[in-house]
Structures are given as C-alpha cells and as structure tokens.
C-alpha cells in the first residue's frame, strides 16, 4: 500500500479548508455559507483521521465521530435559523441582514 506522506495529507486537508473558507467569503447565500462551513469542519475532521492513522491510535477517529455529530446538531439548528430568516426577510442573502450595526457611523452605507 502506498503511503501518502503526512505533509501531503495535511496540505490536502488545508486546501479543502481553504476552499470552504473562500466559499464562505464569496457566497452570499446563507445556505451555501453553511455548506462551506461544513466543508471546513470536515476538513478538520479529516486531519484528525489522518493524525489517528499516523500515530496509530483511535483518538482521531473518535474525534471524527464527535465532529460529525456536533456538526449535524449545528446544521440542524442552523437550518432552523435559516428558515426563520427566510420567513422574516424573504431572502437568503446574508448581506440583507444589516440592522445590527453602528448606526451613527454607517448611516449612509
């Protein structure tokens, strides 16, 4: 079996993480933003798995399961919130939420 060096593995995860990050920054649709976050979380989870494999114990895998569970919970709450948001604003555009800000300085923005 060909082993991929640690560096490459992490680089791969890092690229995944960056894709998620860039996606988060450039997408305005809140659902896509949420998905990008999931991507980031999963890339982190992947590093854990890789680490576990590298060091030869199960801790990484255990962590992976925790991350999956937690992100599932997060997404569920997130989706509920997004639903409410759509209910409220009739849009999923993240930039439409601009009521909370420093009003005096950002009056005309």
């Amino acid at each position, binding site marked *: 079996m060909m082993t991929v060096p640690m560096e490459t593995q*992490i680089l791969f995860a890092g690229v995944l993480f960056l894709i998620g990050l860039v996606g988060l920054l450039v997408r305005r649709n809140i659902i896509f933003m949420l998905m990008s976050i999931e991507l980031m*979380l999963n890339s982190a989870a992947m590093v854990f798995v890789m680490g576990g494999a590298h060091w030869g114990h199960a801790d990484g895998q255990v962590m992976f399961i925790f991350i999956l569970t*937690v992100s599932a919970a*997060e997404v569920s709450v997130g989706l509920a919130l997004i639903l409410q948001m759509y209910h409220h604003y009739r849009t999923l555009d993240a930039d439409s939420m601009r009521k909370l800000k420093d009003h005096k300085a950002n009056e005309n923005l």
Partner: protein
Amino acid sequence: MTKLDFLCLLPLLVVASAPIIMMITITISRNFKVIYAFSLVMFLAALASLFVIAPNIPCKIESLLVMDGFSMLLLGAIFCVSLVISVISYLYFNNHTGEREEYFIILFIATLGASVLVTANHFVTFFLGLETLSIALYVLIAYLKHRDYSIEAGVKFLVIASVATAFLLFGMALIYAGTGEMSFEGVAAAFGKGNMNPLLVAGFVMMLTGIGFKLALVPFHMWTPDIYQGAPAPVSTFIATISKGAILAVFIRFFTLVHGSDNNILVVIISVIAILSMFTGNLLALKQSNFKRLLAYSSIAHMGYLMITLLAGTVYGVQAAIFYLISYMITTLGAFGTISILSVCERDAEDIDDLKGLFWKNPRIAVVLSLTLLSLAGIPLTAGFMAKFYLVLEGVRSGFWILAFSLVINSVISLFYYLRVIKTMFTHSESERYFGLPPAGNIVLALVLIGILFLGILPSFLTEFINSFLSV
C-alpha cells in the same frame, strides 16, 4: 471510571439532568413559574454538589476532565451567575407571552457546555463543551424570534461561531497531527520538548483564533456588538459572563500548561492583541448610544485587560485573572440585569436615553447601575477597582509596563462613556414617575450591590478564598 470519578462528575450530572427533567415536565404541563423555580433549585443543587465533592478534589476523570480547585472555583462562579441569570431571565420573560419554558432548558444546556469547558483537560472535551455552549447560544440568541434583531443576531453568531469553531478544530487537528496528543498535558509535554515545527505553531495560532473569537479579542471581535444588541438581555448577560468565563478558564488552563508565557513571540502577539483590544473596545464605545453595544465594546476592552494576567504566567496571575473575572461577572450582571429589569415586551431598554432621569425615577436601580459602571471603570470602593489593582500589580510585577500604561490610558478613555451613561441617568426627563420593582429584582440589585461593594472594600475574603483553592 471509578466510583469516585463518577462522584466528581456530580455537578455536571446535576446540570445535565435538569434539562431532561424539564423536558419531561413540559410534556406533562407547561408552567413558566414551575420551570423557573425548578431551575433555581437545580442550580442550587449544582452549587451544593460542589460542596459534596469538595473533599475529593483534585481528581481526574480519565484524561478528559479534571476537577481541581481552579475548576471548582469557576464552576461555583458559573452556577452562581447562572442562578442570578435565571432570576433575571424570569423577570425579563415574565412580560412575554408564548413558549418561554424551553428557554430554561437551553440555558441549562449552555451552562452544561460552560461547565464542561471549565473542567476540560482534553481537546475532545474542549470541543464538545464549546459546541454544546455555542449551539445552545444560537438558540438562546434567536429565542425571541418575533423581534427584529433576534434572527439576524442568531444567524450572524451561527456563521461566525462556526467559522471560529472550524479554526479551533483545525488548529487542534494540526496539533494532534503534529504531536499525536490530545490531552492538555500531553500537548504541553510535546510542546515542552521544544520541537515547535510550523505545524504546531499554525495549529496553536488557529486555536488562538477560535479562543480569541469567543473572548472577543481584536481582531476577532467584530461580532460582539451585534450579538449583544440582538440577543435578549439575559442572553447577552450569559454570553458576557459565563460563556467568556468558561472559555477564559480553558484558555488559562491550556496556556499555563504549555507555558505560553515563556514563548516570547506568543507574549508579544498576545500583548499586541491585548493592547489592540483595549483601544479598539474603548474607542468604539466612545460614541455609542446603544447601551448593549456599549457594554459589548467595553467587554472587548476588558478582555484585553485580562490578557495581562495571562501573560504574567504565574500563579498570582491566575489568581488575579479569577478575581478579575469574578468581579467582572458581578459587574456585568448588574449592568445587564438593569437592562433586563427595565426592558418591556416589545424591546429591550437598550438605548442610553432609556435611562434618562433614572436617578430620580428609580434611584435604587440608578445607584446600582452607577456603581456597576464605576466598577467597570475601576473606581475605588468597587470590585472593579480591586480587580484592576490586582491585575495591574501582577502585570507590573512581571514587567509588563507598557500593558499597564495602556491600561491606564484606556481607563481614562473608558471613563468618557461610562460617565456619559451615568450623566444620562441624572439628566431630567419629562416623566419623573417612580415605578415599582418586583422583589426578585430588588434581590438581584441588592446582590450586585453587595457583591461590588464587598469586593471593593474587603477583597481579602475573595483573594484568600481563591488562594486556598488554587493551592489545592
């Protein structure tokens, strides 16, 4: 896991059992008062459980959790504050109609997350505690969904907090990949070997980002004002006190274990972050007319101050940090408590102008709020003064004169806006009608008042208390 270990988990178990029982209760019958009373009882029980396990500390539950003097102290603080927040929440939600009972359930879940954080000794518990806390907070922030701001605040917090979690997690993962360790001691030991490869550094920095986000340190502070403003006042209280306290606790534990203060680069970076936080927070607060945002900004500055103790890297520094944290918690309770008490169903009393004439309308609230603000500003006779004294002393003792100076300058800048709020309270307003205060409100105010003054005049009790716990 031994029986003893299990016993040591008692406080967490108590807190964890509460939501389950509540859910069952709600399925049977909805009664806000009952749930409220029950949550008070449970928090008291959690507090009591601390006394039960007190003889057994320190004890470790595997490598995941640790129950030592430090966590006992912070758990105690968290339970006390939660208790008061429950009272405040009750006063706050009493005006509201609709399904208010679940609020307390989530409050308990959030508290549970915070408790786990405080006792965490492992990346797993760290992560789990953090997420339990965060996810509960998403809900709490957006709880009053009919309000304009709530959803916005909730979504914003959701996104930013998730990003922060992702950073934290990725950082942990990197460190794990680099060291093969996930327990704090293990990581510390690995760090201690001196092989600080870029992987570990990057991991550490990413963790710092995640923690910095939760503590609202510059440049990870942007969310703070919006969330403080958008969340219901008691929830803002929770974020400002318990959430920050718990994160700070875990940060302190981790930071001291890895001897972060010995790393010069880290010290410089945290110093810069601290100074930036102080200035940014205070400058932003200067012209703020929304009281909740103002408190948010002020909290940014206060976290900046707190970093000084962290850098001291001594046990005194930790003591000072705890003292500061506790006095900050009491003070923040006072500030947000007043907002909660003054709030009405439609909106929170968050405009500073809402406080107009409070001195003549309701001197009791005004006095407590003034004291609170003075305590935040660090004026003698208040807890804030002693806390700042302790903090500056430890900072100066470790030679951080620049930080101390920057704290002094910032204290002066901060006076601008604290005084502005106080001034508003004694400017005359059209209606100078006195309004009544529910007994629970009086009790909260009295507690805050006594807390602030007691710590301000006789700090020895708390310092000795902290000292005795930390030496265990």
